């Protein structure tokens, strides 16, 4: 008899069946199935609190007790002396289980435990957020006594405790099932909360001197109002990117989200299944709204993608879609000011302006990386047909020609490649240009599951320092300064493919041999665009070792955009623009010619707008501050002859646009994302709305050019997609040529190479309007190795200034063990630390570091 968690996401292997009897019915289930799961298969619901299918069994709440008889060695079935917890015991051949339905003992045991659980429970259901969807409430009705015999004094606690700005804990409601602490430990792997004290005083909590009774200065009242979480003994504030999942799996109303607390009743909510828009994982979510207002989002259940977990960003960051700066009507610029206009008027002016701009040199198209697949195909077709240009690029971030070729060669038209399930089973995974926890949260959870589970996946990351995410995956750092990733990849190609390493390759005694095993995976992130030669080297490594390669962008729309051909050299389905046969296939599908010259990329389009080569631009969801040189982008749009903007909310682009056409946010429309696996993730509109999706707006605009985009409705859009996707491109793909390797910069005194990437929670506009979530974001710090810090005369905790000729950012220095020397890391886009905008610099550029304020008392270091 062994205890295992049943894992719905494991791929099916030949299963050994075990036959046993439950409530008089004989059934067969896979060997190792827990009694409680087997009962579910037989349609028998055993009440439970601590049990959760994705967590290891605990046996703590004792609610699921059943009577069990087991055959002894002679085969005589003998009852076990005590009722057994069905959540910890696996079925055995010949076992006879009697649940509450057929056993008076089990029924009384369950009622007894329920009475004990309710005894110290406040029974404040009428004001509790969980009331109406509460497992305790429901199971107390189905499996409890009609009344309680408890007349004594209940345990009480001051309420509530803010575990973080986002998560509140009402301890008196807690039944101590430990689902939340087990989630934090087993799934997320972060020190968020733990059990404290014992007996009836046992409680969940974070490090809180007031609760723990530690000596020292009290930090404030226990039921401190919502605010910043305190640091624990290691100096880290308690925070987690996955903390919202604890609220969802809490079987009572003990854990609540600050944003939803006291704002809704479950029976007033309308639920819609949807897909999260904040990253490229395509997590299944559930949107709950009441009278047209979204009140909360929950994780959906999808065993193959996000199981039952989502990031806090996917859960809590939804207010951006209904913020005050929503554009609700078309806007037309008149005398320098935007004024509301009718759709008819705005579209006519837009069409006329674009026609003129086309004559003035052409129109550049910048659709942005957050489109649905339907929109992406409409944008691609609009650019190629209505505007007759290949000057289209969805990448509003650091990008390169090498990347475009890599995407055309490896990603476009490749269907479902590496899956989340593969990550869990892989012997080894190499991350390059990707911080999984920050940039693809659910991918991190699946990688961690593989690394800490049976597969024992070995995770390697080519990065300047070992992040906390990498550490929690028991990962190994392959240290590399930004821009030098290709060196590691080339070196691995040589060592794992057999052969002599080049003399200048990084040498190390790290055992990377697992990467050569069958099933190994290389995950590359979009940041490699800033590292010349890295994409080509990753491809080379994959070819040399047979490892499978997957590209994980940050934004939800980028994979779909690649499929749709939102790149200057790429048509839908991976067809190269430069290939006449490919063009012919697309032309036939669309019934019109396709321009034959590959176009300009984002940087090229902006430059051409600035110098007047291009006459105008159509811009989608692009934040100028996301571009590597926001100042240049602003200047380019200021200089542009004519700009049409399709936007949800007012932005720097709409400020500069001649025509603004409002489009619908995901919650108000149907659509699909193509997640990084290549899986199509469709969702319906959660809210009724008159807002139009991009494809509909472009369809109508195209009519002014006598072009039928066939994208008036989602159904039409799907048919239109199908005509180019029906058959895969069989011809040659674009070859990947390594970009010219940049000369390693000469680091002068006081200088360092900048490393930077986005944190999951930062100053992105998708998180606007959610103050509680913002409180859990990491504060910006400047990371550097001890030697590098010493070179600047800086110590841990000093405030340092990182500057370029463009500007300066001040942040506390954090000396980071094992970090590559000569490198300073900053978060790319956090509050007070907007690297592209302030410094005009990107990863790999040289920056100057000086000490701004030395901290006199070293003991008061900052968060690390």
């Amino acid at each position: 008899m062994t205890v295992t968690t049943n894992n719905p996401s494991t791929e099916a292997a030949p299963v050994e069946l075990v036959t046993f009897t439950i409530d008089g019915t004989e059934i067969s289930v896979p060997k190792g199935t827990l009694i409680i799961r087997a009962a579910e298969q037989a349609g028998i619901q055993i009440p439970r609190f601590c049990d959760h299918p994705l967590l290891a069994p605990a046996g703590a709440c004792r609610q699921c007790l059943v009577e069990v008889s087991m055959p002894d060695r002679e085969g005589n079935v003998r009852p076990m002396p005590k009722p057994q917890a069905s959540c910890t015991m696996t079925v055995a051949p010949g076992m006879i289980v009697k649940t509450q339905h057929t056993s008076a003992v089990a029924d009384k045991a369950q009622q007894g435990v329920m009475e004990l659980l309710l005894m110290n429970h406040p029974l404040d259901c009428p004001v509790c957020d969980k009331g109406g969807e509460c497992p305790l409430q429901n199971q107390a009705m189905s499996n409890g006594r009609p009344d309680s015999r408890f007349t004594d004094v209940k345990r009480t606690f001051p309420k509530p405790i803010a575990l973080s700005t986002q998560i509140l804990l009402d301890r008196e409601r807690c039944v101590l099932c430990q689902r939340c602490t087990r989630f934090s430990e087993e799934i997320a792997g972060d020190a968020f909360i733990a059990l404290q004290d014992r007996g009836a005083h046992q409680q969940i909590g974070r490090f809180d001197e007031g609760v723990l009774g530690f000596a020292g200065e009290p930090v404030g009242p226990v039921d401190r109002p919502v605010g910043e979480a305190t640091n624990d003994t290691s100096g880290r504030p308690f925070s987690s990117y996955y903390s919202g999942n604890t609220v969802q799996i809490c079987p009572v109303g003990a854990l609540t989200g600050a944003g939803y607390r006291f704002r809704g009743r479950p029976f007033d909510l309308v639920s819609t299944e949807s897909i999260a828009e904040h990253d490229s994982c395509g997590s299944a979510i559930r949107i709950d709204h009441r009278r047209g207002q979204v009140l909360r989002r929950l994780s959906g259940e999808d065993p193959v993608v996000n199981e039952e977990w989502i990031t806090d960003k996917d859960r809590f960051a939804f207010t951006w879609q209904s913020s005050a700066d929503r554009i609700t009507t078309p806007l037309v610029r008149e005398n320098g000011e935007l004024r509301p206009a009718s759709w008819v008027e705005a579209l006519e002016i837009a069409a006329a302006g674009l026609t003129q701009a086309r004559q003035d040199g052409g129109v550049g198209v910048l659709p942005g990386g957050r489109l649905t697949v339907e929109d992406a195909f409409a944008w691609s077709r609009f650019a190629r047909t209505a505007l007759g240009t290949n000057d289209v690029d969805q990448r509003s971030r650091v990008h390169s020609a090498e990347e475009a070729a890599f995407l055309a060669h490896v990603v476009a038209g490749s269907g479902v490649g590496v899956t989340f399930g593969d990550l869990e089973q892989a012997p080894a995974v190499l991350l390059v240009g990707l911080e999984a926890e920050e940039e693809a949260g659910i991918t991190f959870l699946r990688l961690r599951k593989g690394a800490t589970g049976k597969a024992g996946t070995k995770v390697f990351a080519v990065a300047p320092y070992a992040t906390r995410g990498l550490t929690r995956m028991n990962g190994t750092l392959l240290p590399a300064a930004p821009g030098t990733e290709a060196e590691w990849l080339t070196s691995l190609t040589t060592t794992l493919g057999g052969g002599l390493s080049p003399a200048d390759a990084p040498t190390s005694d790290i055992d990377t041999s697992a990467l050569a095993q069958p099933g190994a995976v290389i995950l590359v992130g979009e940041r490699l665009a800033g590292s010349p030669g890295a994409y080509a080297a990753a491809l080379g490594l994959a070819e040399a070792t047979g490892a499978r390669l997957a590209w994980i962008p940050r934004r939800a729309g980028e994979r779909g955009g690649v499929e749709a051909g939102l790149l200057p050299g790429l048509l839908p389905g991976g067809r190269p623009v430069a290939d006449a046969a490919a063009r012919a296939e697309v032309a036939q599908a669309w019934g019109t010619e396709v321009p034959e010259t590959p176009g300009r990329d984002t940087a090229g389009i902006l430059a051409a707008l600035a110098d007047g080569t291009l006459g105008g631009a159509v811009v989608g969801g692009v934040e100028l501050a996301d571009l590597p040189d926001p100042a240049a982008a602003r200047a380019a749009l200021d200089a542009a002859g004519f700009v049409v903007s399709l936007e949800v909310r007012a932005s720097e682009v709409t400020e500069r646009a001649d025509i603004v056409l409002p489009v619908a946010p995901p919650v108000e429309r149907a659509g699909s994302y193509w997640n990084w696996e290549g899986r199509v993730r469709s969702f319906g509109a959660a809210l009724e709305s008159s807002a139009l999706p991009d494809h509909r707006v472009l369809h109508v605009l195209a009519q002014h050019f006598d072009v039928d985009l066939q994208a008036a409705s989602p159904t039409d859009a799907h048919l239109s997609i199908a005509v180019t996707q029906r058959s895969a491109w069989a011809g040659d793909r674009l070859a990947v040529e390594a970009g010219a390797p940049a000369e390693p910069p000469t680091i002068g005194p006081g200088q360092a190479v900048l490393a930077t990437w986005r944190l999951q929670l930062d100053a992105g506009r998708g998180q606007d309007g959610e103050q509680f979530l913002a409180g859990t974001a990491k504060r910006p710090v400047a990371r550097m190795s001890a030697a590098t810090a010493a070179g600047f005369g800086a110590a841990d905790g000093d405030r340092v200034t990182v500057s370029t000729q463009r500007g300066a950012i001040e942040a506390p220095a954090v000396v980071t063990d094992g970090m590559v020397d000569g490198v300073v890391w900053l978060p790319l886009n956090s509050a007070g630390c907007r690297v592209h905008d302030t410094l005009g610099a990107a990863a790999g550029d040289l920056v100057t570091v000086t000490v701004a304020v030395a901290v006199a008392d070293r003991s008061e270091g900052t968060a690390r």
Partner: protein
Amino acid sequence: MTLTPVLTDTWDKDRSWRLATYERAGGYAGLKKALKTEPADLVQAVKDSGLRGRGGAGFPTGMKWGFLPPPDGGPRYLVVNADESEPGTCKDIPLMLASPQHLIEGVAITSYAIGCDHAFIYVRGEVLHVYRRLLNAVEEAYRAGYLGKNILGSGYDLDVTVHAGAGAYICGEETALLDSLEGLRGQPRLKPPFPAVAGLYARPTVVNNVESIASVPAIVAKGADWFSSMGTEKSQGHGLFSLSGHVTKPGQYEAPLGITLRELLDLAGGVRQGHELKFWTPGGSSTPIFTAEHLDVPLDYESVGAAGSMLGTRALQIFDETVCVVRAVSRWTDFYAHESCGKCTPCREGTYWLKQVLHRIEAGEGQDSDLDLLLDLCDNILGRAFCALGDGATSPITSSVQLFREEYQAHIDGHGCPFDPSASALFAYTPKTRTPGALAGAGAGGH
């Protein structure tokens, strides 16, 4: 029946805790003999001796050692459970205080027998004096070459770590002890896997009580037959019987298993002068109580079990007729409520409730339905809790209501306790209050 001093043999010697005293009395003969014996033969000898776990459950010690999987080259551990915390139980702490080398020699022999190179002694944290004495004794044994590298020239290495707990009854439960030893929160682990398969640091581990391990040297030195010649057919050997309470000469009485309380009381000068026995525990507060009717029950595992209780740790707490059974049981229940680890619902919530009901009854605020409530609550806890702590908490209540129901009823009917608590005290005692107020709400951090 007479006393059979083995473990207690040298307790009355000058500086009995010193290694030299122990050696003069023939100490470490067992280890010397053991190191020349095949480990498997030592395990067999302990099996043959019939030694059963002295920590309370009485599981055959040799059989427990035999459960270890075959060596796989990785470490295997011996962990000695010296977290003696049960109310009434007071045998291991005096043993470690008076003659710690018994334990250390036993640790060395057992470790050698099971193939362990690093043994741990987990001592209850509150007994600082015992912790210090053990540390010194281990140091003495290292210096004399009984521990450390190449013990007595045999080529066998053993390190012993003495670890002090942080003051939790639950850490006497073997898996909670292992978690605590690993630096985790002391709460019982889900079994399987059992410690023999995945114990300390997930390696094969034997967890034994102090007295069990301390009994091993004499078994090796004098033979299994010598040991099994004592005691009864199924409960062989000698054991420490700890008499406390209303007895003329309280203390440790080492005797063969199967001795009766009547015989022990004769040796201890009887119940307190001028009083008579009312009830007693055979093995600590977790074992159902006995009365004078049970004076002739042989104190071995089988006979005590047949009489409706458990031999437990042979902690014989003697209560004379001045004692209010409600008050005594109520204090024990306070203990269990205080020591419940909180992991499982029945024990955590159940003891919290039981404590309030008992306090109510004792204060004269009980209701007629409370006695049935107590019994039903105990029924809902016994066998439903995660580990045996919950079961133990119900024993004194269930057995005392059975035996003294009319006394409980008298508290309810008379709206108060009919006894004078100062009469049962062995010292001048004025009760602070006769009516403890209802339990105040347990606010955060309040204890």
